[in-house]
């Protein structure tokens, strides 16, 4: 079985080109030196304060995500194609959002069922008919990709709301450059460190029309108990903008203000890292204390921009996912560059029947789930687990979709005694504002357990630095 997986470093013809200059590096590395470097890396991460709290697991809230020093490498031409595909998808998703909150042409044209969109929990009635600045809804699109062969890339899912993990992309590079400077001299690795500058430029480009000066941008966090708080403060620091909580903002008249030691200061763009439901107790959940009462009125009357736009979630729903290639064709008139993973909608009786008969071969996910929770990996599950899952599925089929188990590519990874192939995926972060931008890199997640296909950090996954070799 192992032979059927695509190894990104070695294919049947031997060493693949992008990894050419890494071969000597790890082979010559003595074990003690490696252990030393690994400890150094962990020390650096701790010092930067990068930790990750795992939902509902208790334990050490200051746990580090395991970092694997072996980089994951793309050749320039591989990346060029990915980049075109990612940007294409990000544009199509935004065109879709712009459309479904406006005239819904794609639905009128019969390309997507109306109920799938309009009855979706993530479709926000409160913003129907509202056009955000530049018509952009999802300003940071995280697209999860897997690879199964030299030219085979599949999109696993889209993240149009608030994709997390970009701080790892930046810190992994920082740590690698400090520990192995000579590697960066030998390999021409394209830099990623302008991400924060691009993000700030993207956010500034969607400032509301009412803003007539340098826009005041803030990041809105649920607070320091949130598992991604480190990332929120990291990005605020890199962009030189304030990290605020709901209590730091208030609405007065037609604008949103920030409480400062010099009095109220107007806020123009909010990069929010809290869910729609918590944004404004006067519009959504009345019991929310994380948001800003009255914010949605300011937003809808053009006093402030919220990124991502409330309602953006309707595009990254797992049931909508199936139609993204259709969106590319419909809005852009182009052929999709990135393929979807074939997906069965359990909401449809015939497809449910197939899924129920093939549970042991499929991966079954909750439509609204994330983080690798509540999913079944058929080939790795025992009989009892499958039976328990089958019961849940039968109870509420429309809550699930199923996909074939993909032969995820592997990348060499440091293990106890040397290196071994481990499965990886990739999350690049595409920025959409006046321009559509993508830094050459992303977050590579790696399943550290031998044979495991689940890369989520909440399920024992680790991370790697992701390289794109610059053109010769």
């Amino acid at each position, binding site marked *: 079985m192992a032979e059927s997986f695509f190894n990104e470093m070695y294919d049947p013809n031997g060493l693949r080109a992008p990894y050419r200059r890494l071969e000597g590096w790890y082979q010559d590395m003595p074990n003690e030196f490696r252990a030393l470097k690994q400890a150094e890396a962990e020390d650096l991460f701790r010092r930067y304060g990068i930790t990750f709290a795992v939902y509902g697991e208790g334990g050490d809230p200051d746990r580090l995500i395991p970092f694997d020093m072996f980089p994951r490498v793309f050749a320039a031409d591989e990346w060029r194609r990915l980049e075109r595909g990612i940007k294409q998808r990000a544009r199509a998703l935004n065109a879709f959002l712009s459309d479904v*909150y*406006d005239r*819904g042409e794609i*639905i009128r044209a019969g390309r997507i069922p*109306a*109920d799938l969109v*309009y*009855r979706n*929990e993530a*479709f926000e*009635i*409160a*913003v*129907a*008919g*509202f056009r955000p600045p530049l018509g952009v809804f999802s300003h940071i699109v995280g697209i999860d990709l897997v690879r199964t062969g030299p030219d085979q890339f599949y999109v696993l899912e889209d993240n149009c709301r608030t994709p997390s993990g970009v701080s790892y992309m930046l810190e992994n590079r920082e740590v690698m450059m400090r520990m192995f400077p000579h590697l960066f001299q030998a390999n021409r690795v394209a830099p990623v460190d302008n991400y924060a500058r691009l993000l700030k430029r993207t956010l500034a480009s969607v400032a509301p029309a009412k803003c007539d000066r340098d826009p005041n941008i803030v990041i809105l966090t649920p607070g320091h108990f949130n598992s991604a708080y480190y990332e929120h403060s990291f990005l605020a620091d890199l962009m030189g903008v304030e990290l605020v909580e709901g209590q730091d903002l*208030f*609405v*007065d*008249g*037609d604008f949103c203000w920030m409480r400062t030691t010099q009095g109220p200061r107007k806020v123009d763009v909010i990069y929010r890292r809290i869910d729609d439901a918590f944004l404004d*107790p*006067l*519009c959504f959940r*009345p019991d929310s204390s994380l948001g800003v*009462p*009255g914010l*949605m*009125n*300011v937003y*809808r*009357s053009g006093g402030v921009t919220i990124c991502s736009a409330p309602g953006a979630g309707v595009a990254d729903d797992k049931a909508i996912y199936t139609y993204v290639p259709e969106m590319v064709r419909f809005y852009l008139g182009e052929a999709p560059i990135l393929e979807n993973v074939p997906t069965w909608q359990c909401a449809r009786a015939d497809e449910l029947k197939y899924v129920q008969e093939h549970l042991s071969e499929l991966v079954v996910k909750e439509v609204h789930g994330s983080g690798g929770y509540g999913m079944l990996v058929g080939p790795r599950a025992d009989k009892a687990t499958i039976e328990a899952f089958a019961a849940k599925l039968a109870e509420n089929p429309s809550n699930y979709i199923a996909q074939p188990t993909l032969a995820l590519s592997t990348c060499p990874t440091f293990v106890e005694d040397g290196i071994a192939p481990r499965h990886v995926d990739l999350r690049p972060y595409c920025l959409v504002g006046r321009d559509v931008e993508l830094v050459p890199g992303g977050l590579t997640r790696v399943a550290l357990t031998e044979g495991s296909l689940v890369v989520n950090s909440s399920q024992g996954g680790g991370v790697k630095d992701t390289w794109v070799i610059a053109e010769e």
Partner: protein
Amino acid sequence: MILNVLHKTRYEFATPVGGIIQSLRLIPARCEGQTVIDWRVEVAGAVMGEVFRDGAGDYIQTASLRTRTSNIEVIVNGTIETRDCAGVLRGHRERVPPRAYMRNTPRTAPNRAIRELAEQALAGMEAASALEQAHALASAVHGALPYLPGATHAHTTAAEAMNEGAGVCQDHTHVLIACAHLADLPARYVSGYLNASEDGTPHEASHAWAEIFVDGLGWVGFDASNESCPNEHYIRLGSGLDAQDAAPIRGLVLGGTEESLDVTVVIEAQQQ
């Protein structure tokens, strides 16, 4: 018919609060059935935000007061000309697709009693038009829930009202919305005013009813409380998924809690 409205909402606080923020939906919608002649919304001392129209076609305005205060009064004072459109909402510009009003909230989620009510009401009506079905559901709700003030409260759900066996206009509307959804008809909650006295005497006039979407006709109002469709005695303010979502005033008291709330609505037909 020309109607005068004076609607006062007064909040009193035992100890002064830091202020208040409200999202107001107190300006009548623009549609064929009603034309505003003169309309003012005032919150003494508050900063009033710009009026904008949301996707559902409602006029929305923010009122914020950020000074210590021990009472707040929201006053709506206006004159409007109304016409009977047989309950049909015509000439109302809105951007929300009707199918978006197929979702339930905790307030409009059906229970077994509601399912049975809807089934019985529609028994033998499989071939009937959507309009006929909507009428049948509205009268069934009217029959099932006698009007009884005090039987329910502001947060009562449709299911709870059914268990109670009685309710007010809010409960009738929630139950009717739940029933309509069961019949695959988009439905929503409408808040407004009702001029219910024929002789012009002042009375409690805040009201709520449901709108059900009927293909070919559009949104049609159904007042299950009065087993009728809105006519020239109705003033439509705004809509939403349920009473909370469509509330004319949604607000928060800053640094304190509400002590007492006093609402008076006086509505009278102008002599012509």
